[in-house]
């Protein structure tokens, strides 16, 4: 992680700064421990929009790798863990970090980093200088994923 462009360790916090100006600029993200506790947007995430993104195989892309409690969706992939009950297993901040940049936790993960400008090469012309998903979409998906509970919810489902 150390030395990756755009990322700096400060006092135990990993700070990512949006180094790119213009439309592609990313909002600053602060990793604390293994989470991003603060939402990326001021508007709260919308779980319904989040679900729509999760099952959209051309936008969220999630079902290409993950199964989950989506009875109408056939043929999910199995590269990643099943999303059923993920809201029991991970906090909103932990989910947010996995979406924003799971490679901060595991540099070898196959999971794409959805909210960082990749340092990888040959990005297709249509995809340059922008993250896989915008900040509000990340928040929408986090808001949806925390509703996926196997156990009775201890907090009201949004």
């Amino acid at each position, binding site marked *: 992680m150390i030395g990756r462009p755009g990322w700096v360790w400060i006092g135990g916090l990993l700070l990512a700064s949006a180094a790119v100006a213009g439309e592609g600029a990313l909002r600053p993200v602060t990793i604390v421990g293994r989470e991003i506790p603060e939402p990326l947007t001021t508007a709260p995430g919308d779980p319904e929009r989040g679900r729509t993104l999760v099952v959209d*195989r051309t936008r969220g*892309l999630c*079902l*290409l*790798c993950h199964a989950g409690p989506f009875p109408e969706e*056939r*043929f*999910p*992939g*199995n*590269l990643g863990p099943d999303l059923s009950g993920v809201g029991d297993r991970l906090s909103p901040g932990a989910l947010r970090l996995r979406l924003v940049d799971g*490679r901060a936790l595991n540099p070898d993960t*196959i999971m*794409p*980093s959805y909210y960082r400008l*990749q340092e*990888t*090469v*040959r*990005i*297709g*012309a*249509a*995809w*340059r200088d922008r993250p*896989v998903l915008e900040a509000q979409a990340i928040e929408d998906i986090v808001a949806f994923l925390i509703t996926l509970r196997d156990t009775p919810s201890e907090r009201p489902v949004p």
Partner: protein
Amino acid sequence: MLAALATGSAGAGEIPPAEIPPSEIPPAERRSSFDGMSPDIQAMQRDADANPGLLWLQDGADLWSTAPAPDRPACAGCHGEAATAMRGVAARYPTWDEATAAPIDLQGRINACRRRHQGAEPYAYESRELLGLTAYVAAQSAGLPITTPADARLGSARSAGRALFTRRMGQLGLSCAACHDGNHGRRLGAALIPQGHPTGYPLYRLEWQGLGSVQRRLRNCMTGMRAEPFAYGAPEFVALERYLMDRAAPLPMETPAVRP
């Protein structure tokens, strides 16, 4: 990587050893994606009357024996019967081209032959002619094991191909190896991830409703990674194919294969 590739293309500089880069899949565990196909598609490939690739093969057979101009030889004029002259050739391509001192794939060899010996224009990539002739030549190796030519001059192409295979690229930051070395046998959506061995190209893909080259397939994969695909005929594709063939040996050639 690019520097290594440039060195390989120019044939200049130091000659690296002819070592086969280590693959993540041991030879005894290499499997063609034929094994994971449904029985009906397997039957379509096996049955000469049902394999749609045979239409392109017939075109290739005609081109093999047809002179491009009255004063120029047909392929058969120099090489004779394809069944004997071309047997085993595709199983060891890409190889080294003395004239350009660079690696060359089978399509490139056919087009080079047209320019140098037939006084003809090269065929366009993915044209019916180039696919047909390439498939006809490659089919003469069907059933023969893919071999790894011990030619030290191919060393830089091999290492450049491996570097391309393992390099993250595109907006999604994936690499070929991430799926085909590490996760073959799992599913990406509905699709079974194969080990990624180019045993049957050019092959008929039901999704394409036609025959296509290994470069077409690699371009599809790169687009899926949201990467900018290399151009048809790019030296990167030749290097990648050399590495993939090393990585696939000794699986048997299957041209013309059929895939979903």
